[in-house]
């Protein structure tokens, strides 16, 4: 944040000075212009044969010198501003990193094959996030043959999302109807949420629609009485407030516009689970993770350079530091042996000792030199046979 403020300060300075100089310059030149015009008119109004009077000549020369002075002054001031401008540049250089070559190789995605894969990834991302036209344009430009079928479900989903944004739940309800078996299996509350929104908007329209609200409730809501009992009861109670409006009622939380965003998200989530896909575009997740990681890598690289440790990291290595991305980005179980402090791999899986403590296979081998002799668990006083330890799977 301080970097942003520092550059911002310099920028403001530049903007201020430039605007001031611009206005001043324009004003001065404007004055001179009027002066010259008036002189010109004066000279023109005089008869063509008459010679210039002495006074007129001196005025002329005065004006000439003034013009010269003004122009040179403006030019010097402009040049001086160059200093302020370069300060902005220096501030940016000091506070922001120009390139990442020290931590990520720039040759990585250069091969044709990788470029093609990258194009496909970007294209899929566009289809996923509803930017369908952009995706199609990219497919055209990059010469990608995309499966028409693969983007169909996304088109439908995105269309429904658009409708939901506009407050229209009909297409979403139609979709729910088509997939109601699977949704029921998942235990999804999507349909209930949609009907609830409809009902509330009917109530909001006041006593004139009271009958419509009741009919709506009678047709669509009873099946939720069992599964969403408490919510159902609150909805029915809102009927009390038809005439006065719900703003003052204890149920005003049902008016919250957040409910619309929530129903959009629920729809997205359920639709993706139905299709067996991840909820967020994988590219977006990756890029966001990278944005958190890159600054950390840059600072550690700086430290490494200072201590004369060099070399780029390859696939045989791990990154030098741990970056915590939060629980949302944990997709796999990671077991780190508490004794050897290494990640478990296929050849070094985690094992559970009889006492319940989990260590890696290599650590177990080290603790017990042969397979028969009893050894003591490092974390509790239980003695046990190494053969009794079980390999575990997460």
């Amino acid at each position: 944040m301080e970097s942003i403020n520092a550059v911002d300060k310099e920028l403001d300075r530049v903007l201020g000075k430039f605007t001031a100089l611009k206005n001043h310059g324009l004003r001065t030149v404007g004055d001179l212009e009027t002066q010259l015009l008036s002189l010109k008119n004066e000279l023109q109004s005089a008869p063509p044969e008459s010679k210039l009077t002495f006074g007129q000549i001196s005025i002329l020369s005065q004006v000439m010198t003034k013009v010269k002075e003004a122009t040179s002054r403006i030019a010097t001031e402009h040049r001086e501003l160059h200093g302020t401008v370069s300060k902005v540049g220096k501030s940016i250089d000091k506070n922001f990193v120009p390139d990442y070559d020290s931590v990520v190789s720039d040759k990585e995605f250069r091969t044709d094959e990788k470029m093609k894969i990258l194009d496909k990834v970007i294209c899929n991302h566009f289809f996923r996030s509803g930017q369908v036209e952009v995706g199609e344009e990219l497919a055209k430009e990059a010469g990608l043959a995309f499966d028409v079928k693969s983007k169909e479900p996304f088109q439908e989903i995105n269309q429904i999302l658009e409708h939901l944004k506009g407050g229209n739940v009909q297409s979403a309800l139609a979709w729910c109807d088509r997939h109601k078996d699977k949704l029921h299996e998942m235990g999804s509350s999507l349909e209930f949420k949609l009907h609830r929104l409809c009902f509330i908007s009917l109530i909001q329209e006041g006593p004139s629609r009271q009958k419509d609200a009741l009919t709506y409730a009678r047709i669509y809501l009873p099946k939720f009485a069992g599964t969403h009992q408490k919510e159902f009861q609150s909805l029915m109670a809102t009927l009390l407030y038809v005439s006065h409006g719900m703003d003052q009622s204890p149920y005003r939380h049902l008016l919250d516009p957040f409910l619309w965003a929530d129903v959009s998200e629920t729809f997205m989530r359920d639709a993706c689970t139905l299709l067996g896909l991840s909820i967020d575009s994988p590219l977006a997740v990756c890029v966001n993770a990278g944005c958190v990681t890159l600054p950390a890598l840059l600072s550690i690289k700086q430290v490494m350079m200072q201590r004369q440790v060099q070399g780029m990291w390859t696939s045989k290595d791990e990154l030098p530091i741990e970056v915590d991305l939060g629980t949302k980005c944990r997709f796999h179980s990671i077991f780190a042996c508490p004794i050897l402090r290494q990640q478990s791999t296929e050849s070094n899986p985690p094992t559970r000792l009889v006492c319940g403590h989990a260590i890696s296979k290599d650590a177990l081998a080290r603790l017990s030199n042969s397979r028969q002799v009893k050894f003591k668990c490092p974390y509790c006083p239980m003695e046990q046979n190494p053969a009794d330890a079980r390999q575990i799977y997460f």
Partner: protein
Amino acid sequence: QTRKYKRKIEESFTDELDAAQICKRRIEHLRMGASAFENASDPNNEPVLSQWKRTRLDRFLVEHLLRTGHYATAMKLIDDNRQLKSLTNIDIYLVAQAVESSLLNRETATALAWCHDNRSKLKKLHSQFEFHLRKQDFIELIRTGRRVEAVRHARKYLVGQEDVCFEEVQQCTGMFAFSTSDTISPYKHLLDPDRWSHLVEEFRSENYRLFQLSTQSVFSAVLQAGLSVLKTPQCYGSRDKKNPDCPICEELLNELAKNSPYAHCSQSRLIDSISGQPMNSDNVPMMLPNGYVYGEKSLQDLAAENEGIIVCPKTKEIYDIREMKKVYVM
């Protein structure tokens, strides 16, 4: 005349002010992001933050698409979100596109005009690009047999550069001795049509140097970092370990991440494969007799639906809930 001067002042000042305004807009965008991150724990802030992240990804993609030559797609992205125009440097890339396509059409005029526009900075960078362009013109003149013109051209443009690129000038003059169809000419590498593609590459790198742009797009750098930090050995292991939510388990990204280093973990972080929730002291990991470990909560739910019987989701073996044993993970 004063009127012309006045206009000139206005123009140049307006240009500089516009540039400063663009900088200001970018700073504002960054500031919004920084404060959104600072308030990340506030749930009301969530839509602001995710919208900002989406804009960030879009501007990365615009720059990357421009660099890889997919100009139409980049323009379409900008059309959809006008804010991106001031957040990316499309003008530089559009100029570059014009120059590159003219070079591929084997003409140097556009490129030479570009050199002229940027001559002071190119001089500071000690760029030899203009000289190479003139050299290519010379070669083309020789190729089409217009030797007299070639001599005049050489006298005009190539002579001044002797101190810098003496060898190259020598080679050029040497070309006179041989006819253009001579396949044994020691100078035939100069007649190679691939020289045009080399010129395109040289232009690209000079262009980047000029504007202090990195050789790879920010998108590419960030993606690599992201692939690494999410990469685990399970993404490349057996099929049943793959998680449909994990980006690296997805087929295309999996391929891209093959050469990246793995994420570093010094602490165990376990997830219950049934619910996707973390396993910790609130949701104790429990081992079934077959060695598979799940979260206590999920196992209890499974048992509750089935009168105390659990069917292991991975191997389908049947166990009683009382057979599960606690696993202590440090």
